[in-house]
């Protein structure tokens, strides 16, 4: 496990690559320096010279290094690995491409064997590198991730880079980022196992194209989901009928159906794409569980509330009416014209005070609240955000927000974020997130019962 730890918390890092401006090595050193890595950075290239005020070492010699990043041409990698292995470097990231992804299985096997011989662990080859925002490690050519609580593991480097860019736009951060490329050694299974106990990670997000060891993955995921949620995108939905079978069953079992089943069995939350992944991770970070499926909708506007309710019900969640008892309590605190049913439509009275009061009052009968707000001339959306934020700390159920829309509520959304209330552009997206969290909750309750 020490070698896994070295990947994410190295005390020093060596980068073997071209240090010319615009080349891989240059970009990585730049990322590491600009990102503020606190350990030693050793750029290594025969050219020598300097980069960002740091010496470029022409040779590795006997530098004390806990992590090596390699982006040199493939044919030189084996001998470099032998050298690093004999000097006790245990953790290697190989960014260089040209291995099994282009049919060069022989050389990939060779580096795997060298790693085994020296008990080294390898991430890659053909990957975009790794990051740990917790120690400002940005050993990657991609844009630096903001700090956050989601670990993102991706089989595709390019998609990984795109996700980081999108996340930057959204202000969404990551605890760890790992592009594992061809997976010649370290696999999803090793990474999930490591992240299960990583205190900085609250949610694990995966982008998978195909698994090598399905059963090992399943066993590990089943264990990990009890501690933290796993969200997965599985690409490649249409490879049905690729295996040779003669039974009826075989002809019906498309690859995607098998993955779907495996994810369900392990309690992994499958999402359609990147957008839904962000949505769900933002929800799970604050609310890893929802205790039931009764949702209360509070709104100052009818239309969005109806859309939200429709979606909730379509997804199998409940939007039940309050009990008579609760109605009586609400009657006392609300102005006379306000609807006492769910959704609780506060109409033009929907100021901060009412949003907070209703949230608190209904929290005894519902498992989660969606607060919908559309700004009007007389109402300050930031005030409402603050009021919800404060009440969130008092009540025990999750609050999700759907403040709409655009620049009108930009500042209010920032305020919500301060209190850990996720906001979604539409109530339908809120509903989808809630449904998945509820699903996870019932799954792990079930797992726990059985264990």
């Amino acid at each position, binding site marked *: 496990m020490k070698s896994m730890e070295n990947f994410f918390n190295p005390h020093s890092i060596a980068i073997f690559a071209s240090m010319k401006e615009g080349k891989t090595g240059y970009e990585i050193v730049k990322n590491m320096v600009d990102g503020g890595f606190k350990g030693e950075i050793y750029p290594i290239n025969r050219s020598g010279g300097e980069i960002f005020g740091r010496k470029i070492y022409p040779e590795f010699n006997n530098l004390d290094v806990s992590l090596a990043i390699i982006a040199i041409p493939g044919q030189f990698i084996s001998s470099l690995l032998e050298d690093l292995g004999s000097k006790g470097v245990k953790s290697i990231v190989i960014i260089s491409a040209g291995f099994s992804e282009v049919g060069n299985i022989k050389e990939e096997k060779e580096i795997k064997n060298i790693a085994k011989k020296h008990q080294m662990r390898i991430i890659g080859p053909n990957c975009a590198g790794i990051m740990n925002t917790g120690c400002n490690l940005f050993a990657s050519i991609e844009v630096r991730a903001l700090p956050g609580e989601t670990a993102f593991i991706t089989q595709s480097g390019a998609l990984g880079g795109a996700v980081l860019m999108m996340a930057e736009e959204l202000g969404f951060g990551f605890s760890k980022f790992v592009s594992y490329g061809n997976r010649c050694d370290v696999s999803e299974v090793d990474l999930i196992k490591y992240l299960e106990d990583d205190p900085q990670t609250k949610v694990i997000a995966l982008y998978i194209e*195909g*698994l*090598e*060891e*399905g*059963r090992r993955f*399943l066993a590990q995921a089943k264990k990990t989901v009890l501690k933290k949620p796993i969200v997965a995108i599985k690409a490649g939905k249409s490879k049905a009928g690729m*295996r040779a*079978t*003669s*039974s*009826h*069953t*075989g002809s*019906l*079992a498309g*690859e995607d*159906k*098998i993955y*779907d*089943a*495996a994810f*369900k*069995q392990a309690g992994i939350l499958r999402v359609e794409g990147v957008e839904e992944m962000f949505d769900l991770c933002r929800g799970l970070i604050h609310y890893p569980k929802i205790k039931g499926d009764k949702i209360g909708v509070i709104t100052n506007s009818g239309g969005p509330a109806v859309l939200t309710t429709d979606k909730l019900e379509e997804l199998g969640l409940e939007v039940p009416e309050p009990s008579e008892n609760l109605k009586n309590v609400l009657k006392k605190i609300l102005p006379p014209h306000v609807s006492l049913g769910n959704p609780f439509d506060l109409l033009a009275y929907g100021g901060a005070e009412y949003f907070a009061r209703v949230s608190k009052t209904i929290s005894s009968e519902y498992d989660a609240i969606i607060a919908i707000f559309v700004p009007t001339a007389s109402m300050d959306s930031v005030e409402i955000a603050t009021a919800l934020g404060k009440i969130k700390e008092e009540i025990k159920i999750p609050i999700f927000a759907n403040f709409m829309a655009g620049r009108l509520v930009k500042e209010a959304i920032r305020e919500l974020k301060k209190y850990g209330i996720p906001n979604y552009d539409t109530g339908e997206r809120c509903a989808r997130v809630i449904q998945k969290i509820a699903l996870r909750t019932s799954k792990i309750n*079930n797992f726990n019962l*059985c264990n």
Partner: protein
Amino acid sequence: MHQIIEKAKKEKRSLLETEAKELLREYEIPVPDFKLIKSEDEIIGLAKEINFPIVMKIVSPDIIHKTDAGGVKIGIKTEKEARIAYQEIIFEAKKYNKEAKILGIIVYPMIPQGTEIIIGMMKDPHFGPVIMFGLGGIFVEILKDISFRILPIEERDAEEMISEIKGYKILKGIRGEEPKDIEAIKDLLLKISQLTLDNPEINEIDLNPIFVFNKGLQVVDARMIL
């Protein structure tokens, strides 16, 4: 290795319907009473063993698509009819494939039509053995309303498999109908999970159709491929 499987392996073939059903019986999975008859003479007195009307089907390792080979006759009411059916089946089978090794004819009682379901098992290159469940007929053929799980499964997996298909409502009983025996389906899924685990030589299983009743079920046809 189970002796049925060992024998089939030695003969380089998959399990015969009779063998697959014997194996199912060992797991206390309900299959209609059946008998393998190897000559026309064995039909004499058959009515004492098997309730008529009966189904008669060719048993041959070389004939997989039995209907195409004219190898299936249903609704046979008397021993006399059975003799005629016997002759026809053998004649058609030889016409279909004159090299085919014919081991006999399986006979079993016609059982009342229940709600049709299918259960299957196959091996995935990455996940190993997986189990499939669905309602029979158009539900599986056209709507592909089926669910899968990686084996082995636990009780909760079996429950989910049954309840997640769209046709679940049919099993629960629609328009005032009595619900079908969902417990029996769950039990069958778990038994197939166990059977697969115990017999790793079996690569694929098709139980199709299975008739489910308000109480109990019957596996009408079974194929097991090594």
